[in-house]
């Protein structure tokens, strides 16, 4: 027995080393999946405060580009509003409207709700990138909600605290977004493979469709994270490999992730109902 204790004492450094490494590996395996609650992360209140302080300083250097983005978005919204107003002025057949869509289409009746959030921490150059927002559960943000910017899809909320939220960026090796080619509604999966933060891969586009360079890619709306038709990017390169039954398509992303400053968290009021129905029917959510 004494020998055993002597042995343990002699190798105490090595044993503690093994123990700590085992703990680290456990943490890596447990918390580095792209979707999954984490106890310690940048949504933590104290960590969030530090990051908010940091972005409070660095934000001044980006004010010009932030202003021009907001101004451009304002212009686009005004244009759209004018279009609607014009239509409303000219349109006297509001009662006929029901012929265009079924009056029971729940998506039409209950639109998505947007919560604005400021980006206080952001990365684009790692293998797995995350954002931290200064908007948390008290602003209505919940895990699993989609995040969009004026230019297009950004990512998905991973965890929230009272005042902060961490978002799995589209630039994450395990993040998949259901998307489609806008002109012919062929749907595939957007995936980021690392490297350049301006391009991603569009997978599972079958060979019988003819994707062309410059085609717009938008979200499909086939899951409850993003509304349908949010911009993702444009096709920059189409490859056809001999041994694959799908195209390899490179997509130029619409969002410049290095320049993100304000984003919107998308709340779908019907999400719980739709998800539980699909789960009940045995459909696995295809993220």
């Amino acid at each position, binding site marked *: 027995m004494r020998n055993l204790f002597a042995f343990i004492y002699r190798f*105490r*450094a*090595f044993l*503690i*080393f093994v123990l*700590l*490494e085992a*703990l*680290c*590996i*456990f*943490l*890596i395996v*447990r*918390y*580095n999946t792209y979707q999954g609650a*984490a106890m*310690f*992360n*940048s949504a*933590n209140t104290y*960590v969030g405060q*530090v*990051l908010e302080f*940091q972005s409070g300083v*660095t934000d001044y250097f980006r004010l010009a580009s932030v202003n021009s983005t907001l101004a451009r978005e304002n212009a686009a919204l005004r244009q759209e509003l004018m279009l609607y107003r014009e239509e409303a002025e000219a349109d006297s057949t509001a009662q006929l409207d029901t012929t265009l869509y079924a009056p029971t289409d729940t998506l039409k009746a209950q639109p998505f709700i947007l919560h604005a959030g400021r980006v206080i*921490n952001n*990365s684009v*150059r*790692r*293998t*797995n990138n*995350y954002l*931290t927002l200064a908007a948390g559960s008290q602003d209505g943000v919940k895990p699993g909600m989609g995040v969009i910017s004026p230019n297009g899809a950004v990512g998905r909320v991973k965890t929230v605290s009272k005042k902060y939220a*961490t978002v799995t960026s589209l630039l994450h090796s395990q993040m998949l977004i259901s998307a489609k080619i806008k002109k012919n509604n062929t749907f595939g999966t957007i995936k980021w493979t*690392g*490297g350049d933060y301006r391009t991603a891969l569009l997978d599972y586009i079958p060979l019988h469709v003819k994707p062309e360079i410059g085609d717009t890619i938008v979200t499909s709306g086939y899951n409850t994270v993003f509304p349908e038709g949010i911009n993702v990017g444009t096709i920059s390169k189409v490859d056809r490999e001999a041994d694959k039954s799908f195209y390899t398509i490179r997509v130029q992303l619409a969002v410049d992730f290095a320049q993100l400053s304000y984003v919107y968290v998308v709340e779908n009021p019907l999400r719980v109902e739709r998800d539980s129905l699909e789960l009940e029917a045995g459909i696995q959510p295809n993220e």
Partner: protein
Amino acid sequence: MNSSLGLRHIVQFVVFVALQILLMDSLVLFGTGFSFIYIAFLLFLPIDMNRVLLLFLGFVAGFAVDIFYDTMGIHAAASVLLAYLRPFILNLLTPRDGYDTNDSVNIHIMGWRWFLAYALTLILVHHTAVFLLEIFSLEGLSAAVPKILLSVLFTGVVMVILQLLFFSLKRANR
């Protein structure tokens, strides 16, 4: 020169981790060169440091960075590895007549060759661990190699600059 763990090292911990999170996070060379300067805290600890305490300090430093980087466990694992290997490297690099009582990890006291051999070896171990754990497989190995090499160089240069700026001979002899 006080060789035990004191206020000076607590201040160094805070400063290096803050430097990492606030400044080095956004300072990336050509999209491949990262600087993980917080390990300077571990490297600059006293030479005759208790091994077990060193391991725990390595874990704490790595964990603090992990929280801000949202990379739970990766930096902690690499830092613990560094803390474990540090005494062995120090042993290997022992001068002919052993370490003096007032020796510390200082480029002026120990000389350029000793410092570079010591720092670059440990930085290489740490960075290799970080980038390999990040990809978590061997398929992205070819992409990781230039990242590792450039990052080791970057961190090494920053560390030497820190040594020359803040670890002058006068202060070390105080």
